[in-house]
């Protein structure tokens, strides 16, 4: 019968897989059904279940399985797979960095730092498919890939070519065709009065096929990035808030820059007009869309969340969050829309968005927020916190070792 044959083919294809099947007359269920069920399990359970049988042990490292598992683990419906990585500087004479793993409902735990050098400077880009990239600003060296859920890391060799700039911004991406992780280093040359447009140079390294670093020049883009790492990662591609090269005013971003993996080049569009005066901006992964958050600092701040309308390719205001009070600076937000901020005492505040209390005001959707949780990272320096919403992923890079 035709449909049966079709079913058997599903999830198969390579010759190595048929081999596994031959070894496995012991399970009465089809491999694709087993794979479907297991891809929904938490990472820790999967690591235990490697000892069920040889087939399961191999299954959980297969690229297709890793990708399906991550799509479940990073979905908005899954609350148990959410892990927040908090980076902060240690308060004390010797200024080194502390990494804390925080799974809501469980107490936060300090984790072993995979960063190989004791340097006061440390920055993080990511996550992409459960992987974070730690490095040293401003040159983006001592690059270390880290999978915090699997507790494994690896240092990446740098390119031998001379760096044409004093500043590098690091981004991460994932090539879904090749199923490979990409590291991106953009050489950022700050604009100076009377400067002319120069094309942005960058280099890229694919992890699976270690041909080393490839130096490229962007075809059409002129922009300047002043931050050591990408501002957000959306659909496994990095995004930055950037400046127009010729109209550089520090703090006033004009562009949203995006690295398109399929084209191996940058794309950009103009940020929405948000008026004059002092405002703060964050780029975030907000409820399965890319959100541009803008707010002014007052006693009761409201955050405007903008998103790009995919079809019209225009910005539209998605919603307004607030009022938020008692914070000093906003660090970003979690996938579910919760806003993370820090107060004057260095305490982290997790504001939850009360979806059920929606108010429609001047055609805008306003969601009231309230502090759901506060968190203090022991000995951490005020104002040094950075947060990353990091869904658990099984992706490992060849050569990764236990931290």
């Amino acid at each position: 019968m035709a449909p049966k044959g079709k079913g058997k083919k599903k999830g198969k294809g390579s010759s190595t897989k048929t081999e596994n099947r031959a070894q496995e007359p012991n399970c009465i269920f089809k491999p694709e059904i087993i794979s479907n069920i297991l891809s929904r399990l938490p990472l820790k359970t999967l690591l235990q279940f490697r000892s069920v049988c040889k087939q399961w042990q191999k299954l959980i490292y297969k690229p297709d399985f890793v990708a399906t598992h991550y799509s479940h683990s990073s979905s908005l419906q899954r609350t148990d797979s959410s892990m927040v990585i908090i980076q902060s500087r240690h308060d004390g004479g010797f200024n080194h960095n502390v990494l804390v793993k925080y799974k809501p409902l469980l107490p936060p735990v300090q984790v072993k730092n995979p960063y190989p050098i004791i340097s006061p400077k440390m920055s993080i880009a990511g996550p992409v498919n459960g992987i974070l990239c730690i490095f040293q600003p401003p040159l983006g060296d001592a690059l270390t890939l880290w999978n915090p859920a699997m507790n494994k890391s690896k240092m990446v060799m740098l390119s031998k070519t001379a760096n044409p700039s004093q500043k590098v911004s690091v981004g991460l991406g994932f090539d879904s065709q090749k199923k490979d992780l990409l590291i991106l280093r953009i050489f950022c040359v700050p604009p100076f009065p009377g400067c002319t447009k120069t094309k942005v140079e960058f280099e890229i390294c694919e992890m699976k096929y270690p041909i080393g670093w490839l130096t490229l020049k962007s075809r059409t883009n002129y922009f300047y990035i002043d931050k050591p790492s990408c501002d957000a990662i959306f659909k496994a591609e990095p995004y930055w808030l950037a400046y127009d090269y010729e109209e550089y005013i520090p703090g006033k971003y004009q562009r949203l820059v995006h690295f398109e993996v399929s084209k191996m080049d940058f794309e950009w569009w103009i940020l929405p007009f948000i008026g004059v005066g002092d405002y703060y901006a964050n780029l975030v992964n907000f409820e399965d869309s890319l959100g541009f958050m803008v707010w002014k600092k007052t006693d009761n701040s409201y955050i405007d969340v903008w998103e790009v309308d995919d079809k019209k390719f225009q910005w539209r205001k998605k919603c307004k969050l607030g009022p938020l009070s008692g914070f000093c600076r906003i660090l970003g937000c979690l996938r579910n829309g919760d806003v993370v901020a820090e107060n004057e005492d260095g305490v982290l505040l997790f504001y939850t968005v009360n979806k059920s209390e929606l108010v429609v005001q001047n055609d805008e959707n306003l969601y009231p927020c309230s502090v759901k949780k506060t968190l203090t990272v022991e000995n951490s320096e005020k104002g040094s916190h950075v947060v990353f919403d990091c869904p658990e992923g099984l992706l490992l890079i060849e050569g990764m070792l236990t931290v």
Partner: protein
Amino acid sequence: MVKLKSNDDKEFEVEEAAVIQSEMIKNMIEDGCATSVIPLPNIDSKTLIKVIEYLNKHINMGKAAETGEEDDLKEFDEQFVNMGWEELFDVIMAANYLNIHELMELCCQSAADRLKNKSVRAVREMLKITNDLTEEEEQEIINDAPWAFEGPEIDDTVN
């Protein structure tokens, strides 16, 4: 109406709008292969009744969001998967064979939820898998990530 026949020779009449949620049957109808009774040699009548119950309830799923019946469907789904382990697996195999995507999602998620806190021994028994790893190999797996084997108590029951 479309007629389905289980492997224990029982016939069931189902509305076409309901039955085409099965990609397999939809294809058969489109290809003109569903003129009389569709035999389903892999599915017994007990399982087929469950599947049909699901198909009938989800007949207008696209409209549910508009009419505010989403909560009702959610409740139905929760009740629906409240069945024994063996029964659940029969439904999963039927949903896989008939290629009913939403039902597959629902039941596989339920199976995953049940396996989540089980011991390795319990999992092998529930899925009828024989252990083909040597003791050394098992120890290697534990040594590779010992932290994954620590923590809350593990459920050794098999239901």
